[in-house]
């Protein structure tokens, strides 16, 4: 009788243990410790795009943090397999590998070898997947993240001539891919000119009368982040134009302060200077536009 009882208890214990281990495999015990509390950000992830990974629940946790069996057993002493900090942060490669398990495509395709990868940036240095609003994915706020490191650009954004970056109407990520690219400055498009023309299609041409440097490189005349001179120009006209043009008569002549309103009010200096007449500086399709005046 006693033997039977012992057998029954043993079988029951085995069953309980087995069912426990099965349960543990299905649902790791993350929430045994990480309760849904106001000051804990853990559960916020279920209100984000990552909340339903692997069917949701604690499987969502292990999708990014790893199975973390040791952490499951001794959570206060052993970190999860992948920890994003602030306590026990895993090394950068481990953290990034966790994200890249899903995000090594599309915009993140060329992460390896990128400037940010070479600088050992981790995905969670910019992104926070436990917040309902990941600021890195929102134009105006993402710019704050960018300029907190790229301080030289921060200054340029406030110069007299600029793109509407400070207003958040153009975001850094509209032109640059922070996850890397093979072109210059990790631009989205394959070349600088393609990048500019993706918004300024009216300058795409091709034109009957082209201005050769325009087709070659927009940055020969423009500074895209901001400039002291109007229209993002690298220098003021007429001096800018005269860097490349010294034809006989008016293009070769210096235009100093004698041409100001207190003097001769020179037509090649004041107003739009050269562009008072040669206004089609990006190219002309007019059959009489050989001099870019039509």
């Amino acid at each position: 009788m006693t033997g039977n009882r012992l057998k029954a208890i043993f079988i029951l214990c085995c069953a309980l243990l087995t069912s426990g281990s099965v349960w543990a495999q299905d649902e790791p015990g993350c929430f045994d410790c990480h309760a849904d509390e106001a000051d804990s950000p853990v559960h916020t992830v279920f209100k984000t795009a990552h909340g339903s990974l692997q069917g949701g629940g604690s499987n969502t946790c292990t999708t990014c943090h790893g199975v973390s069996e040791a952490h499951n057993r001794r959570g206060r002493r052993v970190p999860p397999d992948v920890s994003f900090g602030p306590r026990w942060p895993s090394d950068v490669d481990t953290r990034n590998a966790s994200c890249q398990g899903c995000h090594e495509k599309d915009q993140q395709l060329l992460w390896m070898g990128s400037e940010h990868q070479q600088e050992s940036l981790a995905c969670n240095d910019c992104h926070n997947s436990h917040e309902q609003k990941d600021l890195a994915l929102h134009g105006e706020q993402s710019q704050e993240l960018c300029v907190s490191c790229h301080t030289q650009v921060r200054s340029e954004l406030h110069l007299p001539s600029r793109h509407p970056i400070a207003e958040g109407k153009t975001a850094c990520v509209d032109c640059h891919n922070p996850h890397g690219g093979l072109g210059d400055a990790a631009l989205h498009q394959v070349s600088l000119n393609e990048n500019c023309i993706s918004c300024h299609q009216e300058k795409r041409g091709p034109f009957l009368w082209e201005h050769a440097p325009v087709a070659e490189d927009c940055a020969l005349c423009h500074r895209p982040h901001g400039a002291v001179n109007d229209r993002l120009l690298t220098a003021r006209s007429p001096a800018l134009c005269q860097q490349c043009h010294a034809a006989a008569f008016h293009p070769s002549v210096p235009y100093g302060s004698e041409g100001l309103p207190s003097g001769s009010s020179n037509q090649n200096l004041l107003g739009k200077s050269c562009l008072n007449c040669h206004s089609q500086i990006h190219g002309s399709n007019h059959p009489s536009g050989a001099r870019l005046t039509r």
Partner: protein
Amino acid sequence: MNSRHRIPFQLTAASALVLAATGALSQDAAKSEQQATPYAPLALENRPLQSSALTGYAGSLQMGLGYTGDDNYMFGQYNGLSDDGASFIGNMQWQDFHSGDSYWQVSMSDLGLDTREAKATWGKADRLKISAGFDSQQQVRNDSGRTPFRGDNQQQLPDDWASGLTTGDFTNLDDSLRSFDRELDRDRLFAGIDARINENWSVQSNLSYEEKEGHSDVGGAIYIDAASGDSALLRSPVDYRTTEFDLGLSYDGDQLHLNGQLAYSDFDNKDDELIWQNPYSSYGPNVRYPAGQGGLGLAPDNDQVSGRLSGHYLFSATTRLQFDSSYSVASQDQNYLDYTVNQALTVTEPVPRNSYDGEVATSTANVRLLMRPLAKLNAQVFYKVRDRDYDADRDGYQYVRGDGGNQPDAKFTVYNTNHDLTSQTAGLELTYRLPLRSKLSFEYAYEDVERRNSAVEETEEDRYTLGYRIQPWSNFSARMHVQYADRAADTYQWAQSYYALLDTELINATPDNQRYNNHPELMQYYLANRERWEGKVDLSYLPSERWNLNLNLLWRDDDYDQSNLGLTEATWQRANLSASYAASKELSGSIYAGYDVYEGEQTSRAFRGGQEKNAFEIYPPLPQASDPQQNWDIDATDTSFTVGANLHWQFAPDLELELDYNYVDTTGEQDYSTRPGGTAVASDLPDVDTRLHHVQASSTWHMQDNLSVQLDYQFYSYKTDDWAWDGVQADTIAKVLTFGQDNPNEDIHYVGASVIYRWQ
């Protein structure tokens, strides 16, 4: 005695040994700790705090009223606040990730302004995402100018216009001037879908339609030769439509990832031509006021079809090939305008074809091979090519000069040219990790650019870059970079553009020593020999957990050592300093300062005198062209100094304050020098100074967890004294009828009050 003396010595020696061993061991331990702890970028710890009010709710709705104190065009250049008066503050965001594996997100902002935007997204986790929305942008420019012209793309003068040879003769100009807006509105509708077909394949597609409307400004001149032109600044209509569509297919395998995309972009300008009535009375009756007109061709309709393939292939854990290549064809075949808008002028020879009917095929390929041949050595081999290939006929255009006279003889025919270009860059970068979390890198790149119909057929550049990065302590990192680049250009064919443009009859009739457009000693800087030195330093230091300091320096010198005329040297120096302090979750602040100096030195030669060069009359060569005493120089320096500060302070559990200040001070200098004995005279131009102060303050009272009241205040002050417009009235320039616009001088106040409701 000796033994007594020896004991302390032995003790001392033993102590020293122990200390040395301890030191050595601790040093080894420190070294191994340093080696074990990898490099970590600094300056990330003290970034702007993410307020839970901003990031911790599923939805929020902000509504209120704003008030702008005055009309303006600098403060409101891009933010939609250019008009004085009240405006509605409306922002909303809402997302739901609770409904099984599907989710949706909606966001709207600036609902009461012309910069409003909205986006809605619905998706099923990692399988499907559909989004749609709109984005409105606005740009306003200086609207203080006035014009006598009426109409849009057919601009007429008032009936009582008093014409004359110069603007000073326009006696009723003041009565004719009317204000106008220079404002561009850009509205874009977009939709996109991203669907995963199976484990490896997914498809994406995007469609967008954009309207850009408003007015810009443009200069137009009526003339018969380069010696004189009757110019007017005009309000230029902008009425663009752009439709873009793309379709992409992605493959994600274990080793191979591929993104393929086909895209189409169509640009449609509703206005082909800007016609204005000639306000001047120069030239013949068919050209001068009132019958005469000028016509400008506006941006032609065009389209582009493109394909792009990017991806990477993983050969092994340490070797990977990345590539991004594209092929696009941009076409433009808009019907030509007539040679002149003045139909009464004699034009005997029609345009050679009905349209340009030209194409440009642009091929690009960017390839990078990443390798790690040794544990501490990374290597990159890269190759880039960009080829721009025109397919357009070369024709002769017997063009009418500036709508100013009859069609000239056939010998004055000019020919269009294509500017084919092939640019190739190949190089190698090696990076080796050293102790103290340091890294040494070396890059060599060779760039070759071949051009057709250019003064220089080929330029070759060698670039050597040495970089070093070190993090000797966990709170300090330094990065340095030195680059030397040497660009060599083929023989500068200074007469190339002359021969490419003009007719052989004209060329043959021109004396050899006058066959050029640009002075033979001038080299266009982007085609010229150039030696470049560049240095960069970036230092980051965290004196404590709460502080972060960063110093960033740049120095670059471009020496165009073979250029006698043109840009001869350019120097760029930049220093940026930033500091941030995060005392607690409740208090953080940052300041930054930037100093930027760009200096360009250029030389030219003034050559004129006597008649306009007429190739059909044999003059002696223009004597001044070969006289170095006619040289003149500009030393142009643009300096900018920027300072900014930001403070975020939650001084009570329910009260938050955000302060932001930016100051910008820029100066543009142009100093001239001429040669003694020459006739070229030019004095230094006045400095162009610009000052900006921008204060933004925002305080938020969290009345309840989900309800806040926010007060905003902005003060914006902008002043400049640009000599190009300073004191320039509409009739100040004899041969340019300008807008007579003022330089910006704004002091703008903005206040806003709004209520924010949040929910989970």
